[in-house]
């Protein structure tokens, strides 16, 4: 490592110990700290300042850099989480690479928390500075990475969520492609009758949106089209779309997934036959086309959901059942409607109101126990009524099953193309349930609508807008700056790499790939610098910049003693 040594010979570290008024200096002797720091290896200069972050302090740093020819700067003061950018900028102005700066936290994690142990706090601060200086010696200049952004978006799925997203983006002026598998836009809404809770006519509603989409500027509609391949990364995707056997490639900056969901095929459940015993969805079509004449109608909730195989609540079925019950009553007030349910999910005042309305109109609600499932006979249903603790026999001439929304069969393929995950029920999995509900961990890819989870129309629309808004944060820039402290496979370590791909598989951001030359390559635009890959690398070949093994080890050694 003679080259390494040579480099270290020229290393000149400057240490600046901040009094932070009395926050630090009130407990420990900062001047003494600075003086003692001068003894540390490669330290060319050390001083203490009343407020290193003040104009005076920053000026002192710049001056010292010039006077003492410093090429590493260590500031011992508060916390890097708030102040690191400031000092980085400072040394940058003095002509040093901003990454040649190291922060030592002797306030938040030292003087403030050891107020009654002045000596020990002093010792701790001294150790921390020693460690910080040791790391500083090993620091290397880094460049921020700039990535160009193609100002175009692609929305996959032309349902209500996808159309909302596409409209939003195109109205912001971004070239937007809307890809729909079917030959027309609209998705699930095309086959609905009315929408709860205001009984708006579905076809009218969706017709409006479709015509908006069709008339929108910057918006290209690709119906009967399917995404078959996606390459690239944030700002620079290449998407291949197949349309009637021809393949077109699009350059895309951000992608929104709005592929929606499917309906469970209830064959084998509760005697489903598509005729006398149908799904809510089929009922909806019937309602749309003709009047419902049947008199005795039973609806069963949670058919195929909230069971072991499919443990989730599909969240829209209760409202659909209520809506359809009311619609039937509307068309045929004589109809007797019974809803067999497990729990009714009608959140919010409007939905709860809807429930009340149904009861008022004479819809009968019977709670059944999943342990004692309703028994379907040719013309009647036997159900154990939990509330009155007896078995009831209810006649029917139309049985309607409330089946859940399920994930599309082809979600897995799309997820693999996008390198995004699916959850256990094969819906798309967002980056963070609470904080990043419409992002994916993969930058530049977003999600909206029931592709993520069964949601109603309102929610779909707002998620579509949300996803579009998230995408525009990328698209609105010509370039984005990506953290420079990324993982890398340095030239000198290339021979160590066996290509085992453990790093590829462990990276949560899919930032590591095997390239065409069969070599491990880090896509810096995607790398967040977490360092899991370096800690995992089987041959210790990967290096995480700014937190290298060498740097961290030097801290450990500085503390533990050589």
């Amino acid at each position, binding site marked *: 490592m003679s080259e390494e040594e040579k480099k270290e010979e020229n290393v000149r570290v400057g240490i600046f110990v901040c009094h932070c008024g009395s926050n630090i200096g009130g407990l420990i002797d900062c001047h003494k700290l600075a003086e003692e720091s001068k003894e540390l290896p490669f330290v060319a200069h050390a001083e203490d300042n009343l407020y290193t972050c003040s104009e005076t302090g920053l000026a002192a740093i710049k001056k010292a850099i010039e006077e003492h020819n410093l090429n590493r700067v260590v500031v011992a003061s508060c916390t890097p989480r708030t102040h690191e950018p400031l000092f980085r900028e400072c040394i940058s102005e003095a002509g040093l690479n901003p990454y040649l700066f190291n922060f030592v936290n002797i306030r938040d994690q030292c003087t403030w928390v050891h107020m009654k142990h002045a000596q020990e706090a002093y010792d701790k601060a001294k150790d921390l500075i020693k460690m910080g200086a040791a790391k500083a010696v090993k620091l290397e200049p880094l460049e921020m990475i700039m990535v160009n952004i193609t100002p175009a978006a692609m929305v996959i799925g032309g349902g209500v969520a996808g159309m909302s997203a596409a409209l939003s983006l195109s109205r912001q002026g971004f070239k937007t492609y809307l890809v729909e598998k079917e030959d027309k836009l609209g998705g699930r809404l095309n086959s609905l009758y009315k929408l709860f809770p205001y009984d708006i006519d579905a076809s009218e509603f969706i017709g409006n949106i479709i015509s908006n989409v069709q008339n929108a500027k910057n918006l290209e509609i690709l119906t009967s089209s399917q995404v078959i391949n996606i390459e690239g990364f944030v700002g620079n995707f290449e998407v291949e779309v197949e349309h009637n056997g021809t393949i077109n490639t699009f350059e895309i900056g951000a992608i929104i997934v709005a592929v929606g969901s499917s309906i469970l095929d209830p064959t084998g459940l509760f005697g489903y036959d598509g005729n006398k015993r149908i799904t809510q969805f089929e009922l909806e079509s019937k309602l749309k086309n003709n009047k419902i004449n049947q008199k005795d109608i039973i609806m069963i909730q949670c058919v195929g959901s909230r069971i072991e195989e499919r443990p989730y609540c599909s969240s829209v079925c209760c409202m659909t059942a209520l809506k359809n019950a009311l619609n039937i009553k509307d068309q045929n007030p004589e109809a007797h409607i019974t809803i067999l349910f497990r729990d009714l999910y009608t959140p919010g005042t409007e939905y709860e109101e809807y429930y009340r309305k149904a009861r008022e109109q004479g819809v009968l609600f019977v709670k059944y126990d999943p342990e004692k499932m309703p028994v379907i006979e040719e013309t009647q249903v036997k159900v154990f009524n939990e509330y009155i603790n007896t078995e009831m026999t209810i006649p029917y001439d139309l049985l309607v099953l409330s089946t859940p929304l399920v994930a599309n069969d082809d979600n897995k393929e799309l997820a693999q193309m996008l390198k995004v995950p699916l959850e256990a029920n094969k819906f798309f999995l967002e980056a963070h349930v609470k904080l990043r509900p419409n992002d994916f961990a993969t930058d530049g890819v977003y999600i909206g609508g029931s592709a993520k989870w069964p949601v109603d129309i309102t929610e779909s629309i707002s998620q579509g807008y949300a996803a579009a808004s998230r995408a525009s944060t990328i698209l609105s820039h010509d370039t984005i700056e990506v953290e420079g402290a990324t993982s890398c496979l340095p030239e000198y370590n290339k*021979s160590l790499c*066996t*290509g*085992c*791909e*453990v790093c*590829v*598989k462990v990276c949560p951001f899919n930032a590591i790939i*095997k390239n065409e030359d*069969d070599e491990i390559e880090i896509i810096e635009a995607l790398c967040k610098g977490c360092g899991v890959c370096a800690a995992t690398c*089987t041959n210790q070949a990967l290096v995480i910049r700014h937190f290298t093994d060498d740097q961290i080890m030097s801290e450990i050694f500085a503390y533990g003693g050589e």
Partner: protein
Amino acid sequence: MEKVGAVMVVGAGIGGSQASLDLADSGYKVYLIESTTSIGGVMAQLDKTFPTNDCAMCIVSPKLVETGRHQNIDLSINCKIQEVSGEAGNFTVKVLKKSLFINQDKCTGCGVCGKECPVEAIDIFNEGLAKYAATSVRYPQAVPLVYAINKDYCIGCGICAGVCKAKAVEYDLEDEEVDLNVGAIILSPGFDEYVPPKANLYGYGKYKNVVTSIEFERILSASGPYAGRVLRPSDGDVPEKVAFLQCIGSRDFSGSGNPYCSSVCCMYTAKEAVIAHEHMHQIKPTIFSMDVRAYGKDFDKYIIRAQEEYGVQYIRSRISSIQEVPETNDLRIRYETEDGKVKEEIFQMVVLAVGFNPPNDAKYLAEKFGIELNEYNFAKTDIFNPVQTSKPGIFACGAFSSPKDIPDTVTQASAAAGCVNQLLYDEKGTLITEKSLPPEIFVNGQPPRIGVFICHCGINIGGFVDVPEVTRYAKTLPNVVLSDRNLYTCSADTQTIIKNMVKEYHLNRVIVASCTPRTHEPLFQETIREAGLNRYLFQMANIRDQCSWVHMNEPEAATEKAKDLVRMAVNKARKIQPIDRIKLSVTPKALVVGGGISGMAAALNFASQEYETYLVEKQDKLGGFANNIYHTLEGGDVQAFITDLIKKIESHEFIHVYKEAEIENIDGYIGNFKTSIIYGKNKEKAEFEHGVVIVATGAKEYQPNEYLYGQNDLVILQSELEKILNTSDDIKKKKSIVMIQCVGSRNDEHPYCSKMCCAEAIKNALLAKEKNPDVEITVLFRDIRTYGFKEKYYRKAREAGVIFIQYDENDPPKINVEDSELRVEVKTARHDTINIKSDWLVLSAGIYAIREENEDLAKMLKVPLNDDNFFLEAHVKLRPVDFATEGVFVAGIAHCPKTIEDSIAQANAAVSRACTILSKEEIEAEGKTAQIDMSRCIGCGMCIENCAYNAIELIDDRRFGRVAYINQALCKGCGACSGNCRCAAIDILGFTGEQIFSMITGRVS
């Protein structure tokens, strides 16, 4: 049903490989199905082989490589038989090819996957003595050299796919089911060794230093876990005293073992003892055995050498207990000596000579193929044809039918192929395709234009040798017009590149710098041939196996070495010339010398394939020694069998029988012999041409001059007794018979075992007892050698009351005649002297080969005899019916004493070997042969002495006088003649002096 010209061989050990090669060479399409992931079977696990101490790997691996790349052999590994339907001539077999999870076509066998696999599993090939990755190859020289993932151990981490530069790992590779249509099936699944049960008296599994013989074989092996050092597993020390215990799981009528004798353990134990001592001189082996059954050719000599030269101690005893000495892990063995004393001895290691079990899946195979098994679950075979199973069209060979050693397995493999020939001869050549090749480009006289292709071999070369640098360097060498590098030069797309480059750059020499020519030269030769170049315009530089892999820590030196190797290859390439392989026509006729059982069986086989056959017999009657035999030990009616055989032979349209015949002269060589004979009472002359010769001249029964034979009428030979027993009731008058074994065998003059006498004695004893249960029969023996399933009759004889008494060879029985009564006096092991009154003294006389009788024929055929005057085969282990002289084969007792069924097997084997020649209109001789410059030859004849193939003779040349002449048809190109030629008159094509000098010199700075 229509016959199919394809054959399935199940099991690719040495037997299966041999059968496949024979059939493929004879023009059949062969499907070789193997259940493990590589071929070679147990032989590949062995260190050395008895009785020659040949290195097993050295002799087996060329054969395996040949099997692996033969264009008529379709080899499938990791297979399971699913279903069989059809009948002789047309079977359909459903075979399940289990996924290896590694694409066989892409895997280059580089082994990086195994090195990086984080899972360590038990190494089965090394008998659990070492650890192995879940991604592995069975052994380094495996054929085919492809890795496989053992799904039982694999955790699916995916690392192997990552590190594989050839992208051969495919986790979604699925099992595949194929239907194969074949005319005949040969089963050669081998055996499984007996595994001592957990709670056994030998402490196997409990004491670390008790190992089985197959484990010990891996310990001995130079490529085994200890690299050939004999160490004991408990602490890695060299064991000084090693005890070998015989008959573990064999000859066991009461325990968990098998009642039969496993036939080979006595010999392999002697071998292991000898090799152990040879590897580490401090080792002193002791063998605890019952009978020492060294019944094969040259086996007894080996036992004697083991004792005399290697100090192997034999103790005749079955031990009574083993205890571990806790502090040292030594083993205390308690045993009873022959004279009845109990002794204790400490050993550092104990080796259990485990016997053969039938293959674990014997029952499965039997059920699938619809064949019967015998009482021990080995394949049941015909009493006179040991390769014929109970179902026509399905044959068995090797240890599947009974425990046997390598040469017997190889013989049977060829025999099975011989029987297939008989069945399918008219479909020969129907299912194989010849590749059409472009005419060769004429390059003579043109300046060399060399193309060099340097292989990265993924990271195997490129990781240590600077390949771009070597490529650049190669370009600077004289006559090099192209220097290119490839990730894998052996991949299919690179072959296309090479072909294109040959055209584009008008290359007339091609060099590949990559792995080893031993496995890859034929591939590249094929490529350049397809591009229109002569195969021999190719050179290979081995920069992987002999450079990058062995100098991993010195990349610079390795690069230098690679450059040198490439330069040397270029230098040689500048000197190479096209070589044309000589083609010889073949006369599709056979000569069989000897009209005994072997000769007749061979002749009948040839004839039934419509090859014209000349059968020459010295006597006035066919049948040979079998005329004196009535039954086999197992009860086969020999007389009926040979009567039928003679009838078939004498009436066959393709067989010409010459009786009372003598061979005057045999001329010529493989494919083109010419023989003249004198035959019949009237001494008529006949002359005929033929392509092959089978020597089946048999041998004689010894006529003793000891034990009063010929002086006293009561002393008779076993063959005489057999005749009496079968033709009269004289036995009923007798009270006591004494038999003496090893008369004229295993002595100084005839140091070999005659193999059949023990069985003969027991056969006669049993028949005598049957006819006269009151007769007292005493057999005086040295070792009872009822090997294999014959053990059953030994036991039967003892149960029938036959008394067996062992005598000492140094103190043989004495015969006293008192009042014209015979009295036999013998000393037992416990030093008692017993005196037996005997009505008949029956001598088990050995089998003798007479030098005077064999020598003439041997000289005419230029084949050797061994010390005992039997004919000496080309290679004891792997070429048991061939001679070094091509086109000449041996069968029956002319080779060494053997049973009737073994003789028939060998006859069929000889035919099969011969058919590899007769089936071709012309044969191609090796191209890299010796060439003589007659103008330099002084006719000293040194080369003739050194030629192992009798390819050289002195001729009188019109221009140069008496000079050496090399028969190109016989020359193998070894170069021994050239190395010794004092006037540098002989050169070897492909390795000429000029070429080698160019490699030695021509170093450029």
